[in-house]
């Protein structure tokens, strides 16, 4: 190994780490607000990548039908959850969130997909199709369980993950797809060749992290999310809806997941079941950060990306083993450092 190879590996690790960082941020966010370990995070990545690839071919992606189905199911679940007497009060908002928004996205996909307006438009349509699935999923699967223990929520998340993988097969098919790059260019910097897509990924990650920071610091909704994360009961006492916060957190997770999918679609072939392993690497980073610290999650994600790149060079048959083994010393250290009885449950 010489300096050139090391530099190439670092570049590779940082780009992959940036995607894991986005996923780790979502996991930390959703866990803080709802106590759900969002196992299905990877599925948003796969759905995003597959929708983007389908739109690139001028087809309406299967996610349009899936979104329609989820929206209707969430609408029905929302009604069933409320007393009949309060239907007139909640109906406009519920219909708006579960039906109207979805209908607009789907209509846009049907009108714009055959026109093939290029990668940027495809990316926007993908985000419009995949993001609204997340709050619908929250309404369907998690809102009725909001008071359950972390373990029950985890099991529900595993169930949602399995269901989403199956639905992915039905709506996207068994074949893998690869999307086009936003910019098909590359720059030379000494021995390094940096592709424009790598720069797009890094910029998008920085932009998302900056926007999230601004959102949490400067907006009412962001502060409300932070309040729920700090103290659920206290937040409710001052009038912050726990369910609304959960849906907002899921919406953010769905958006970032779909965006990650669009970003990695040009790098590799994505199958309906590819999301899990990618999400799992984000999960490793989130765990290293204790599921609590945003900057910690980002740093850990970069470490995961770098470990992966160097493990691929030195011992490629054991690459995944090495990446996932990183978690063990961290867990050991954490369990040694933590005070017994700290758990909130």
């Amino acid at each position, binding site marked *: 190994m010489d300096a050139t*190879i090391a530099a190439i590996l670092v570049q*590779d690790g940082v780009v992959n780490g940036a995607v894991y960082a986005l996923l780790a941020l979502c996991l930390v966010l959703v866990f803080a607000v709802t106590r759900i370990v969002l196992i299905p995070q990877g599925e948003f990545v796969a759905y995003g990548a597959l929708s983007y690839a389908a739109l690139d071919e001028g087809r309406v992606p299967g996610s349009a039908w899936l979104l329609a189905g989820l929206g209707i199911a969430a609408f029905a679940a929302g009604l069933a959850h409320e007393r009949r007497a309060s239907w007139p009060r909640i109906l406009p908002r519920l219909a708006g969130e579960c039906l109207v928004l979805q209908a607009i996205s789907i209509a846009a996909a049907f009108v714009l997909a055959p026109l093939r307006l290029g990668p940027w438009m495809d990316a926007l349509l993908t985000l419009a199709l995949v993001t609204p699935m997340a709050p619908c999923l929250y309404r369907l699967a998690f809102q009725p369980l909001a008071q359950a223990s972390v373990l029950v929520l985890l099991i529900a998340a595993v169930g949602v993950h399995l269901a989403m993988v*199956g639905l992915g097969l039905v709506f996207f098919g*068994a074949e*893998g*797809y690869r999307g086009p790059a936003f910019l098909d260019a590359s720059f030379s910097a000494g021995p390094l060749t940096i592709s424009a897509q790598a720069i797009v990924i890094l910029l998008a990650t920085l932009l998302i992290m900056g926007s999230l920071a601004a959102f949490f610091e400067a907006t009412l909704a962001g502060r409300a999310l932070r309040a729920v994360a700090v103290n659920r009961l206290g937040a409710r006492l001052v009038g912050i809806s726990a369910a609304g916060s959960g849906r907002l957190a899921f919406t953010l997770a769905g958006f970032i997941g779909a965006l990650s999918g669009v970003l990695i679609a040009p790098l*590799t072939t994505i199958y309906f079941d590819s999301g899990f392993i990618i999400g799992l690497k984000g999960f490793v980073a989130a765990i290293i950060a204790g599921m609590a610290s945003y900057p910690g999650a980002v740093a850990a994600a970069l470490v995961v990306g770098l470990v992966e790149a160097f493990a691929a*060079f030195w011992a490629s048959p054991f690459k*995944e083993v090495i990446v996932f083994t990183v978690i063990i010393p961290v867990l050991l250290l954490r369990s040694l450092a933590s005070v017994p009885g700290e758990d909130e449950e």
Partner: protein
Amino acid sequence: MSGLSRALLLASAAVFATAMGAAGAHAQTIHVGVVASLTGPAASLGIPQKNSIALLPTDLAGHKVEYIVLDDGTDATRAVADARKLVDEDNVDAIIGSSVTPSSLAMIDVAAEKKVPMISMAASESLIKPMDAQKHWVFKTPQNDSLMADAIVEHMAKNGVKSVGFIGFNDAYGDGWLVQMQRALGNAGIKLADAERYARTDTSVTGQVLKLVAAKPDAVLIAGSGTPAALPQSALKERGYTGKIYQTHGVAVMDFIRVGGKDVEGTILPSGPILVAAQLPDSNPVKQVALDYVHKYEAAYGAGTVATFGAHAYDAALLLQNAIPVALKTAQPGTAEFRAALRDAIEAEHEVVLDHGIADMTPDDHNGFDKRARVMVTIQNGAWKLLP
């Protein structure tokens, strides 16, 4: 009272079911069970296989043939459960399946225990070799890995390749190919310069490719299946690798060319002749059979949808169609004698022309394919081209 009426109901249902079963036996329907991986990682193999089964005629030698397709989810445990269900509940006369090696290996126990002939659609030679009392009941239609590995190494030797780099999937597929290549390269006196592995879902193979390029091999073999096999090839091109790049027959799907684009131009791979059926000389008997399958498949599912994997299922059914009339001479469908006769008839098939080659079964070789079952193919201008 309700207990009594329930018992009565059950008893009458049982009598009715027995009567139905007897009636079915009189109609002498031949039941063929199919276990395919319709979901899970191997879904892209199982779905065209299921589609191919749907193209088959349902009448044969005056008997109705019923195909019962079950999904194993690319899971060996479910494949065994499916096989047991087919044998115990549907009383099948033969089983086709499963799509991948681990599932097929697990099903051998059931086939041998229940004495049902089984035709696997998975590639590994270990399914039928070494021959023993259990594998006595097992046949398979895809070419053995070793046949394909020998073809690649033969081509390498002919083109003056002295050292080879290997990058393969980090799973049973990559393992099998690495073992086969070590054997074949050793026989040919070609050096294996470096062996790297990667996962189907990897977003980058930069590390592996850097190491491969540093080993300076004359040629690189990528042992992956489907579109993920394009990733190392793109990375090799990006790093300025100019040697020959070989792929395995796992990439013989149009999606691979679609995804790989200009990076996969000039790739050399072995394949069943069906991939380039239209380019085969008319003297090749496989041409007619393979084109017939391609036309049938595309008429049913649309132009350009045919995949070589689906033809393995069709070939398995062709073997059965040849064997069933022979077996019918000695026994009736649904009996143990018929199943044994069916097995013997498959084993006795000689020079049967299939989509993937010409099978010549012997008691020791339950695949029966020889060099006529593989051609070398390259990618030229975004299409498969037969190499002389």
